[in-house]
C-alpha cells in the first residue's frame, strides 16, 4: 500500500475509533456522538492525507513521527478552539492528548509500512 493511501486509511480508521471512544470517556456527549465521529473521522482523514503526502516526499521515520505528532496536535487544538468559540465545554486533555497520539501512530506507521509509489521509486 502506498504511503499516501495508508496514511489516509489509517487516519480515517483511527479517527472513527477516536471519536467512538467519547462514549466511554465523556458519556454526556452520547447524544452528539454521530457528529463527534464524523468530525473525528474528517480530522483523521486530513491528518492522514497530510502525513501521507509528507511521507511520500520525505522518507524518514523520525521526521514522519515528529510531523505526525505535530499534525495531530494542531488539528486537536483546532477542534478545542472551535469548541471554545462555539461556547461548548472544552475537553482539552481528552481531545489534545489522544489526538496527538493518533497523529504520532499514523506518522510512524505510514513511514514504516507504506510503500513508495512506483513512479516515485523510478524518480518519475
Amino acid at each position, binding site marked *: 500500500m502506498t504511503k499516501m493511501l495508508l496514511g489516509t486509511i489509517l487516519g480515517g480508521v483511527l479517527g472513527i475509533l477516536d471519536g467512538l471512544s467519547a462514549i466511554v*470517556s465523556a458519556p454526556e456527549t452520547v447524544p452528539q456522538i454521530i457528529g463527534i465521529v464524523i468530525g473525528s473521522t474528517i480530522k483523521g482523514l486530513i491528518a492522514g492525507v497530510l502525513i501521507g503526502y509528507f511521507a511520500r516526499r520525505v522518507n524518514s521515520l523520525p521526521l514522519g513521527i515528529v510531523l505526525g505528532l505535530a499534525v495531530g496536535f494542531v488539528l486537536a487544538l483546532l477542534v478545542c478552539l472551535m469548541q471554545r468559540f462555539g461556547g461548548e465545554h472544552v475537553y482539552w486533555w481528552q481531545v489534545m492528548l*489522544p489526538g496527538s497520539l493518533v497523529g504520532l501512530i499514523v506518522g510512524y506507521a505510514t513511514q514504516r509500512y507504506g510503500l513508495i509509489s512506483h513512479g516515485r521509486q523510478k524518480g518519475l
Partner: protein
Amino acid sequence: MSERRGAVPALSDPVLDRLRGALAAPELPERYVLGQPLGRGGMATVWRAHDLLLDREVAFKVLDLPEGEDDLAERLLREARVLAQLEHPGIVPVHDVGTLSAGRVFYAMKLVQGRRLDDVVRDGASLPERLRLFLRACEPVAFAHARGVLHRDLKPENVMTGPFGEVLVLDWGLAKKLDDREPAKAVCGSGTDITGHTGHEMRLGTPAYMPPEQREAGIVDERSDVYALGGVLHYLLHGAAPGECSVHLAKPVARRLASIVNRARALKPEARYATVSALAADVERFLAGSPVLAHPESLAERGLRLLSRHKVVVVLLLVYVLVRLALLLIAGR
C-alpha cells in the same frame, strides 16, 4: 646412520617454513613481481604479486609441483577456466593463466583483501549482519548453478567479505560442471590439511560441510551445495561447524533458523531446498519477520512473531489505550 641423523642440528618450524617457502617460490613472468605467500592449499600456493604493466596488486595461484603432475595441472587449469566463465561480482575474476618456466601451471586473479566469514563471526558480527552476508554468499553460488557449475567445497573459510560490503566466494578448485560425464572422485583420507584447505588425492570437499551423497557415492547436484550452505549457515549461527560445540541462540529465533539449517542439511537430497535461491528466500523471509517454509508455526508462535515484528505499533497503541484509561481515572469516572 641414526647417530649421523641425530647430529643434524634441529631446525625450528619457522626456519623450516622459510626454507620451504624459498624453495617453492615460483619464478613469475617478467610482468609480475612476486610478493608474500597468502595461503597454501592441497595442490597450490597463492602468492601476492604486483602487476608492473597495469600497476596493481594481484593474487597468483601456482601449482606446487612442476610438470608430470598432469592431473593437478589440469585441475588448476579447469579451475581457472571455470572462474573465467563465471563473471559475477561475487566471484574472483581471472586475469591471466599459463605455465611458468619450471613447468608449474598458474593463474593470476584479483587480489581479494578482507576478512573470511569465520573471522567475521569470531569478531562478533550481529545475527542480521551474518545472515545478510550469508545471502550475499548465496548469490554467486546460485549464479554458478545457473551456469551449470557446482562449487563442491563451500565453507566459511572460502567466503571473503570486503571492506565495502562485497562478498566473494573463493576456492573453486573442486568446482564441477554439471554436464561433465566424469564422476566426482570419492577417495579415502582426511578432507583438509592444516590450513583448512581441501587436499589433493583426498576426499573431495571438507567433511563437516560435505553432503552424504558426495562423501559416499560422489554423485552431486545443486542440492549438494545447498547442504554445504546449510553448514555455513550453521557456522554463522553457532560459531562452529556442524557437529562441533556451539553457542545457543534465543529459543524462538533458534527454532526457525535451526529448521532452515536442518532442511538445507537433510540427509536425503530430495528433502532439502531444491535450489540455493529457495534456501536464500527462506533466510530472507526470516529476516523480514515472515514465516519460513522450513518451520510450520503454531498459533502462539505466529502471535509472538507478529508481536515482535510490530512491537513499536503495539507499544504505541498500548500507550494510546493507557492514556485513555488515565484520562478516565483522572476524570473520576
